[in-house]
């Protein structure tokens, strides 16, 4: 974790976000306090979550059988995962990939390419997206190509 904190400090302004996800029991207050104390001790000032899912569920969703694991997503949402068996070695590989993917964006910017995404959404998903902007004035434009 301290390595991730350093990595975040080093690259946050270049476009890196770090998220930690603890898979401990979120109903165990003692564990939550222990996690929080640790995160404060290492000054983990990024998004820290504790996952409210049964072990079998998150293992299936992530496609892994245990932890620690690190997923690195590029700017387009593609990812590579690292099984942190040898944590020091894997973190070095993670940082190497992070640097590579951060640079990829820099070269795209130099070409003046805009990042545009279109995705299917249900009504519920749309409502959730709007909810996310509560407090702002939101302009919702329904349109079509005809």
């Amino acid at each position, binding site marked *: *974790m301290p390595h991730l904190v350093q990595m975040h400090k080093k*690259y946050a302004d270049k476009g890196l*976000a770090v*998220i930690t996800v603890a898979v401990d029991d979120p109903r165990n207050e003692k564990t939550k306090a222990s996690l929080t104390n640790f995160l*404060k001790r290492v000054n*983990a000032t990024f998004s820290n*979550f504790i996952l409210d899912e049964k072990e079998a569920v998150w293992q299936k969703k992530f*496609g892994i059988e245990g932890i620690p694991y*690190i997923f690195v*997503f590029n700017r387009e949402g593609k990812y590579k995962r690292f099984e942190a068996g040898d944590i020091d070695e894997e973190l070095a590989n993670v940082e190497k990939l992070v640097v590579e993917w951060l640079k990829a964006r820099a070269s795209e910017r130099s070409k003046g390419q805009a990042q545009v995404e279109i995705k299917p959404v249900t009504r519920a998903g749309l409502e959730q997206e709007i909810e996310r902007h509560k407090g702002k004035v939101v302009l919702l434009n329904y349109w079509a190509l005809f």
Partner: protein
Amino acid sequence: MRHAVILTGLTLLAAALPAQQAAPEEVSLKVVNYDQLAETVRQLRGKVVVVDLWEDT
């Protein structure tokens, strides 16, 4: 097939908190389910995102 499931799940992961979400100033720990985590990651598209799965116990 397994990779497809993972990809689907993690593509969903690439769909969550505000895209240009600022890092919290203070250290905090929030309880989320998988879908909320997925939404958080998705909303960060445009950034390089490191997701660290760990446990205290």
